[in-house]
């Protein structure tokens, strides 16, 4: 056989084999999307999570380790809706990675798959650090996770078509388990309907809506501004008229404001893991919701 032809055949064979050996490098902006990516891709992907449950995603800087990891990422999974606007665009332009720029299939925003709530009627910084597209803290509603999971699985198929069968099968299995778990959570969480709570930041809105709870106040005077003494006194006064049963904060929020209010208003202070890794128990998305519900139900007792 012509040696050139042999070489060409060998090269083609090598190229055909390549996709089957490739693993998807996933860069997740927040732990909830990292956990979701792991559920959907299993061992077909290596997942790097840029932030932890103890970090406020608004305050992250485009530090060198993020740029280095984004450099080799095939797929970036972020929340979007300007949650990461302070750092992700800089990470994208500094990384030298053309696949993860805005508009490319390698850049996936969870909020683009959903309908957001609390869209501001008026966009003005005097109202605090608000997000134009709506409340971006979408992951504490199981139906949102399901919708994002379906879209994310299809994006993985688009980027790594060699593993289509595996991604679709894992997505189907995950969504089935998720559906059963969601039904169970709704039953377990039924006693929480109508529970009035104070939250630290407006990052619990989707959880409140899903469980039918009622948010009666926030520790922050306006979104993104730290709690102040004046505002806390006003909040305490308003709770006398419209009481709350608990003050709820995420694991990354500072504890002092919640403890102060808890003492003065004589209501329990609840710390929710908020995302995967925020507590000992919340090791994956299923445990996250289990732990969140059990901590909230403890208030009822």
């Amino acid at each position: 056989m012509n040696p050139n032809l042999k070489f060409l055949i060998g090269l083609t064979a090598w190229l055909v084999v390549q996709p089957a050996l490739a693993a998807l490098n996933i860069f997740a902006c927040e732990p909830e999307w990292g956990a979701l990516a792991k559920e959907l891709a299993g061992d077909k992907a290596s997942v790097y999570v840029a932030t932890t449950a103890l970090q406020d995603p608004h305050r992250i800087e485009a530090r060198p380790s993020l740029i280095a990891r984004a450099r080799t990422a095939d797929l970036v999974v972020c929340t979007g809706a300007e949650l990461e606007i302070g750092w992700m665009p800089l990470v994208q332009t500094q990384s030298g990675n053309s696949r993860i720029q805005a508009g490319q299939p390698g850049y996936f925003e969870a909020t683009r798959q959903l309908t957001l709530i609390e869209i501001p009627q008026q966009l003005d910084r005097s109202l605090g650090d608000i997000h134009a597209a709506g409340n971006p803290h979408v992951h504490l509603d199981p139906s949102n996770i399901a919708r994002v999971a379906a879209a994310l699985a299809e994006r993985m198929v688009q980027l790594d078509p060699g593993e289509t069968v595996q991604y679709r099968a894992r997505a189907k299995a995950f969504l089935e388990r998720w559906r059963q778990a969601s039904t169970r959570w709704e039953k377990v969480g039924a006693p929480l309907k109508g529970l009035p709570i104070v939250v630290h930041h407006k990052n619990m809105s989707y959880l409140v809506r899903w469980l039918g709870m009622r948010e009666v106040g926030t520790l922050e005077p306006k979104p993104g501004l730290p709690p102040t003494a004046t505002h806390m006194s006003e909040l305490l006064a308003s709770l006398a008229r419209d009481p709350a049963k608990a003050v709820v904060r995420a694991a990354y929020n500072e504890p002092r404001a919640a403890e102060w209010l808890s003492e003065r208003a004589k209501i329990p202070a609840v710390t929710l893991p908020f995302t995967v890794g925020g507590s000992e128990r919340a090791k994956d998305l299923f445990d996250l919701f289990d732990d969140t519900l059990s901590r909230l139900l403890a208030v009822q007792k």
Partner: protein
Amino acid sequence: MFKRKLIALAVALAFPGAALAQDADLAKIREEIRQLRGTYDQRIQVLEQRLKEAEANAGKAERSAAKAEPAATGTTARSGESAFNPAISLILQGTYANTSQDPNTFQITGFVPSGGEVGPPKRSFGLGETELTISGNIDPYFRGQLTVALTPENEAEIEEAYFQTLALGRGFSLKGGRFLSSIGYLNDIHQHAWDFQDAPLPYKAFLGNQLKEDGIQLKWVAPTPIFFELGAEVSSGSQFPGSDQNKNGAGGGTIFGHAGGDIGPSYAWRAGLSYLRTSPLNRAYEDMDSVGGAVTNSFTGKARMWIADAVLKWAPNGNASRTNFKLQGEYFRFTQDGALTYNDTGGSAVFGAVTDSFNTDQSGWYAQGVWQFIPRWRVGYRYDQLRFETVSNGIVNNALGPTAADFPVLASHNPTRNTAMLDWSPSEFSRLRLQFASDNSRIGATDRQVILQYIYSLGAHAAHKF
């Protein structure tokens, strides 16, 4: 017709005599009324049914409109000429300064003046530079950015106007136009984002505050878990320590490398090494001779600079919202080799134009720490040191006429400065700073400075540079 019947009925009733004869009429009228009522009843029923259906449809329409609304309003105005508007942000700054020495007499003795606006702010109230930044994606391949500084003297200075590639891939990115060089650590950070009101002494003495280049920059990020980046710039070399060279090819260039990473969840670091080389041609500065006459000195030769930089940031578990700490320092070595021309024809006119060799080998460094101790409040301290080391002035050494006293700016001196600051940031977009400094840049005079500064940003959200 109905009315007429009614009137007929009334008339008939009014005349009871005709009652019997009207009975048949009455019966007929009653029958007609019943029929009419039936017809109207039927019509009312039909109308009620239609109303119910219409209301139900309106309810459905409302719900789907409510659902559609978020999707529609969630995005910005989707049509018209302004649909693709770039991101625009504006920085407003100003100062109130109290300085014990006259800011107009500021000099860094021992070092060739760098020509930048390196002095302290004017006394009393003063406007700082107002910065307008406009940026956006041009197409899938490029993005662009403009930063124009509007000075209090009513000049518009282009700080940066560049394009940057998006699609080269493989870790490469190319930038071209006018941009802040990526040497060192502080050089490519805009002044309003600094932790102090002014630049460290080495930046003032060796780079005229910040080096801006007209040229191109190529950066490459290595595909390693530890951040490693290499870059090179070629430029016209027209900014200090270069000059307007009016020659073909690149007048100056830099190469640099940075490495960085995380140490556990709480620490992040970056360190780098940079090298700058340029060939100034007739780079001039003004000075005074020993009797106070004006002198113009101009240097032609080669200038080289090495910068080593390091920054370490700490926040508990990496969450910088409540408390955080930042430590940074840079070391500079600056050498020049060439010829200096002393020209007093515009002043005392004693020696005219005298030229001889001129070599300098000088260094400087600074270290600063900034600590956010509670949300919104930060405190910082900085120490600057410049070392005169060697300035070999052939005109003086070879006794060509002018003596060392005719080069007052180059008198042997090791400037130092201590700066402390406290700043309060009510939000991410506003900052008020109080800064104290004890500045020994001038030989024989210590300038005690108290500066109050405000920095406000409005418009698009700025990037959190590391």
